[in-house]
């Protein structure tokens, strides 16, 4: 029986974690993700979970402790944002390269400077090459659903990689909205018991984690890591299918909204996709064939599937809530354009950097993006393919 509720995005993730009842949760607080360990600490104090909650002195330590716990054979996770994520950079790579299943709940926030506490994707996009699987959410419901699915993906024997589940700081983390929750038992049964194959606390099979690798072996280890990320694609879809059967909510690599017959498409990640759906509804009433590809899975990057979904559009705007400072655009723009090139797509494509440091995105803003795409399609001139939205002149 599904339970109708109203929760903020942070509460939603914390409740998913209560239902999962993980073994170890080391944490250090940072806005706007602080509420996740805060709510969870109250569950621990009230005896609702039997998790070992470890308050540590920094994010470097929270990730390191999660890594230690995972290596020992425990189901572990932590949460962070922004500078906290930046401070766990080194252990992020250790988690992925040592093939340790664990989950990191990221509440996306800009990186300094100027100092800013609000949403953009610079933090997790900066960690895109760390070897973590990355799932993004549009709203509290998707953050909850991704959290429920994360350990299944991470712990799968063909994957064994850490997973980041990301949601937009304040915009969804602090917004109270309607949500449908699964029953505790449904989540417990779905996630299941964690039974690691190799782990440090197994006296029957002594093993080493994180030893030195000479040149003779390093590249084979990295190749195996790349293979695991490749395998993650099938596993993400398998887990999503099973979750869909349980919840009635269906997930894939991305959500297509009126994309099938779209002439003009927007590709984006996160909460602004919901706003864009309202824009599309308005435009469709006027006969404009507008559509949206909202990316859920950024790592592994579903390049072929994205290109296939965009094959019939005339013009596409790829929207990045982070800049790469490459003088070419943001990370999503680079990867989507690369995917389109390999599929020999002829659509005009522009890359728009938007929403940095919490800069608001309105239905009207997205209307202007679609109007620009229509102009580009008509003239065949994309103009500057690296643009900014909503910057004062």
């Amino acid at each position, binding site marked *: 029986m599904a339970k109708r509720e*109203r929760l903020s995005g942070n509460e939603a993730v914390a409740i998913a974690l209560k239902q999962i009842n993980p073994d170890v949760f080391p944490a250090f607080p940072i*806005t706007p993700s602080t509420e996740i360990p805060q709510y969870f600490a109250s569950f621990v104090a009230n005896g609702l979970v039997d998790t070992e909650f470890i308050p540590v002195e920094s994010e470097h330590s929270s990730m390191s402790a999660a890594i230690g716990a995972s290596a020992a054979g425990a189901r572990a996770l932590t949460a962070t944002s922004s500078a906290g994520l930046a401070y766990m950079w080194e252990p992020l790579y250790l988690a992925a390269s040592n093939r340790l299943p664990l989950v990191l709940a990221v509440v996306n926030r800009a990186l300094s400077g100027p100092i800013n*506490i*609000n949403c953009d994707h610079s933090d997790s996009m900066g960690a895109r090459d760390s070897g973590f699987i990355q799932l993004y959410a549009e*709203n509290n419901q998707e953050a909850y659903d991704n959290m429920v699915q994360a350990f299944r993906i991470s712990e799968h024997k063909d994957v064994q990689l850490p997973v980041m589940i990301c949601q*937009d700081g*304040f*915009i*969804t983390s*602090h*917004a*109270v*909205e*309607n949500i449908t929750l699964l029953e505790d038992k449904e989540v417990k049964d779905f996630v299941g018991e964690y039974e690691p194959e190799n782990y440090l606390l197994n006296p029957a099979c002594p093993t080493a984690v994180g030893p030195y690798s000479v040149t003779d072996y390093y590249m084979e280890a990295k190749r195996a890591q790349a293979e695991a990320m490749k395998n993650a694609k099938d596993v993400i879809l398998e887990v999503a299918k099973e979750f869909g059967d349980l919840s009635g909510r269906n997930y894939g690599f991305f959500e297509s909204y009126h994309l099938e017959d779209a002439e003009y498409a927007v590709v984006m990640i996160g*909460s*602004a996709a*919901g*706003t864009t*759906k*309202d824009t599309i509804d308005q435009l469709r009433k006027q006969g404009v064939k507008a559509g949206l590809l909202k990316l859920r899975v950024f790592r592994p990057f579903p390049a072929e599937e994205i290109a296939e979904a965009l094959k019939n559009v005339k013009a596409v705007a790829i929207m990045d809530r982070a800049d790469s400072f490459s003088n070419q655009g943001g990370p999503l723009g680079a990867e989507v354009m690369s995917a389109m090139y390999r599929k020999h797509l002829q659509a005009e494509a522009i890359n728009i950097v938007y929403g940095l440091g919490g800069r*608001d*995105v*309105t*239905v009207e*803003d997205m209307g202007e993006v679609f109007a620009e795409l229509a102009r580009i399609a008509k003239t065949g001139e994309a103009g500057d393919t690296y643009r900014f939205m909503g910057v004062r002149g």
Partner: protein
Amino acid sequence: MSNCTEIRWHGRGGQGAKTAALLLADVMFQTGKYVQGFPEYGPERMGAPITAYNRISDDKVRVHSNIYEPEYVVVVDESLLETVDVTKGLKKDGAIVINTEKDKETLKKHLNGYEGDVYTIDAKKVSMKCLGKYFPNSPMLASIVKVTGLMDEQQFLNEMRASYAHKFASKPEVIEGNMKALEMAMKEVR
């Protein structure tokens, strides 16, 4: 979203405007609506102007932008009238509710010629009388519910009692005072 009511709250950090917006989302959820309640933070400090928002709709709310053309505005701190354009984008057929002891005519010169309805409530008086301390958010929440007619008054009070019981589980002694503040504000807002 023609059936979506949009409300903008202006307050100062520490006054509970955000909490009031979240409580409004909470009680409206109980009536079967789709709700959104969210804050917009500037600098994180006590006393800084903050804005909070509500969307209340019959349909699922997907939009995640701030609100620029609200039906209703709630001003939790009167001093903001001097520095913030609180009626910006406010619809003419909507209304503004202001926490003040002043009369409407005195206030109107601060409202940039706003032509819609103006309601006032002396939330300080209500709060001091019912709680013995100045917490304007409960009286302001009751006022906006009364002005919008979004839900039945008795149902609102019932839901709020349940909400407070949850929120103030560790200090139940403040529940009765807050309930009185809600009831008094509903009578006093005009």
